[in-house]
């Protein structure tokens, strides 16, 4: 896919991609190397994965990372309840089967029973992605929120698109069905070098006013004038050293709220933009929101 085609494709999926993003995604489509996406909150990391899934008409499997996430909810686990039920169900049959058998014979029969076989395996999102019938998009969201150990668990997946389960063996994904893996991070902590080495890297920088305007207008619900003004406000807010800069989705909600009101007062919608009292104070004091032009459709 050429860069322009990627940009067009993503635009069709409702995502406004810069050339940088298009290069990274284009490279990913050619080589199928996981892409680590970093950037400020709200800059469109998660949306990118969603848009790529939409563009490729692929299923999106998403895992939200958090402190304490482990391989059982990430890759696979054994169905404990089913194992128990199976034991319960087999108990009578086994009793009959083993009646009158010597110990070695009984052992031989028992050895044939495995409670850690494929029948009892529950595929969690990562394994689902590897075993999917069609190529899908796997989004590992906010990888930095989990501990480093989780990263190490994922190394085999990121590097070889395979998972090794001691009781079953290695489950590898065929080359043509390899999922497109996105990792996102807010740099809450630095990811390990091992992870980084297995990924391409994309840093989504702050949007310019022009880009923000286009994004706001993308779904057609916000008229150009309003979008331009909102984008301008957002850009000016970037200079206020806010604790939590408002992102595009927040701005979208805010401007929609304004448009829906009879008598729009931009400061009344401040609760949608500022996420700390200090930030609200700063925005109010800066007077950015005061001069609202006629933004109606």
């Amino acid at each position: 896919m050429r860069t322009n085609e990627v940009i067009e494709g993503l635009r069709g999926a409702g995502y406004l991609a810069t050339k940088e993003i298009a290069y990274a995604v284009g490279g990913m489509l050619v080589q199928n190397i996981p892409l680590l996406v970093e950037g400020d909150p709200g800059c469109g990391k998660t949306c990118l994965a969603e848009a790529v899934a939409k563009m490729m008409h692929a299923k999106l499997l998403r895992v939200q990372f958090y402190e304490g996430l482990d391989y059982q909810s990430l890759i696979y686990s054994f169905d404990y309840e089913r194992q128990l039920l199976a034991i319960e169900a087999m108990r009578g049959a086994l009793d009959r089967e083993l009646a009158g058998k010597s110990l070695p014979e009984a052992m031989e029969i028992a050895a044939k029973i495995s409670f850690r076989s494929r029948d009892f395996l529950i595929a969690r999102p990562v394994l689902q992605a590897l075993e999917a019938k069609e190529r899908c998009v796997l989004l590992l969201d906010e990888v930095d929120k989990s501990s480093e150990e989780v990263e190490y668990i994922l190394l085999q997946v990121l590097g070889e698109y395979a998972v090794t389960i001691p009781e079953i063996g290695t489950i590898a994904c065929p080359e043509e069905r390899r999922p497109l893996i996105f990792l996102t991070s807010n740099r809450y902590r630095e990811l390990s070098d091992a992870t980084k080495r297995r990924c391409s890297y994309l840093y989504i920088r702050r949007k310019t006013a022009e880009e923000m305007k286009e994004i706001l207008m993308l779904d057609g619900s916000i008229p150009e004038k309003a979008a331009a003004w909102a984008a301008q406000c957002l850009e000016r807010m970037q200079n206020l050293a806010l604790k939590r800069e408002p992102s595009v989705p927040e701005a979208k909600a805010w401007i929609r709220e304004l448009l829906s009101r009879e008598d729009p007062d931009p400061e009344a919608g401040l609760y949608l933009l500022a996420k700390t009292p200090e930030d609200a104070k700063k925005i109010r004091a800066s007077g950015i929101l005061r001069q609202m032009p006629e933004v109606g459709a």
Partner: protein
Amino acid sequence: MMVEILTELAAYLQEKGYAADVTQVQRGLELLSFGNTDVTDPEEVCGVLRPVFSQNPAQYLAFPEHFHTFAVSREKIRRNAADRRNLEEAGRQRREEESRYAARRGSLEEQLEEMRQRFEKKRQALEQEFWSQNPDLLTRADHRLLEKMRETIEREPVLTGVFFGERADLAEEAMAILRDRAQDALLFGDREAFRNWQGLYRIAQKRQDADVVRKEQLDRFVTERMPEERKAMRALEDRILAEKRDHEETQKNIDREMEQLMSRLQIKKESEQHREVFEGGGAVVLLPGTVGLLPPGMDLAFEDLSSSQRRQIADFIRDNVLRFRTRLTRNLQTLREGALDLRETIRAACRTGGVPLSLIRRKKRPGRADLVLILDVSGSCQSASAMMLTFFYYLQQAFPNGCRAFAFVNSLYDISPVLGAGEIEKALPKVLSMIPRRGVYSDYSRPLHSLWTEHRQIFRKDTIVIFAGDARNNRNPSFSEDLKNICRRVRYAYWLNTEEEAMWGQGDSAAKACMQILPMREVVNSRQLSSAFLRMVSERREDEGHNFDSR
């Protein structure tokens, strides 16, 4: 070709701190070869390689610049090499031209010489012929006189030359002599001698006049008789001249070209060195696991740091605080499954007819790593406190909700709101100004007591406490009881002592007493600061016996 370029780029990027390794070169190569990349467009190549080689925002943002610098210097180097080759080629051409010309000229000159000799021989023959056909213009009387005077004449070489040789050019001189002689003769009254001399004078005059005419006649005579030879000789002479002009023109062109190349090569010296730097080494400069390249001044004591060094170290701390954070929390957020809670499991099994359908595990320890930082900013720790504050500032940024910072001289101030609020340039002076320090001596017992009594709730099982100060209590009441209480309650506690270890326990220092309670580390420069912080985590186990950890 592409492999070569990418390898060089990787080496160059390594110099710049990128972890560019073989895998990445390979990936880049694949992308450029199999993707739809227009490899002639540098912008596109840069865009495609950027995600491959970058690993963090700084690297990502700086990549185009590095790429551009690399491309330009590589282009220069390539041109440079070509120039060098051209220069050598030009030198070779010049030498070749020289020898070719010498050979050609040599043969031509030989021909000319030969021709000249032939010509000369013929000319001599012709001259003789001419002379025999054209006797001079003297009368018989003149000849007689000459015969008569031969003896006298032969005594004078000049006269001999004029009268018996063909030296018409000496006629003037001869005539002067003859005039003198004639005058002498006149004075002595020798009429005959006078007449003779006069006669000779006239002959000399005739000779002189005739000479020009005769020479012309001779030339005409010779030319008429050997026109071919003359023409050939002249043509040959012209050829030699043309050859020489040609040669000089060629040489000049080559020289000009060489001069240009030379000047360009001299300008490029710098880029050559640059290439040597990044090509020569080629060694993998991977960032060390914990920190990037250390800024200068890491080993200087805090008070010896210049302001620019302070700034550099502050930047360094900022850049690495994320890594600190990873290290620090690594041991706290483990995947360790909570232990099976048998009591609860059995209780649950009762509901499922005795089958333990759901296993109940103990709640895992939440992987939080709350930090409490306590800093002595008294005069004795002044130089260190700015650096420590910088360190604390970035720690606070990295643990936005899990960090409390206190500072004191003799009473306790909660500085977390200030550190957490704004930029470091504003925050640090604000902290230092909000705590009265003039005329106040450090007192550890009061602040620690208020810490324990008023802020007990912040010391939890997962808290990490870091004290920073020189432990000089100015003979105030002992504070070890409060210190013990705090250390007992928290997970880990450390003391970073801003005084040299040799001074610990001397005078009013309570360092030795504190060491009984918690591990203490000397931190008088930035290197010690960073390593102490990293070691806090790794040495935890050894310290555990030491620590009043009540788990």
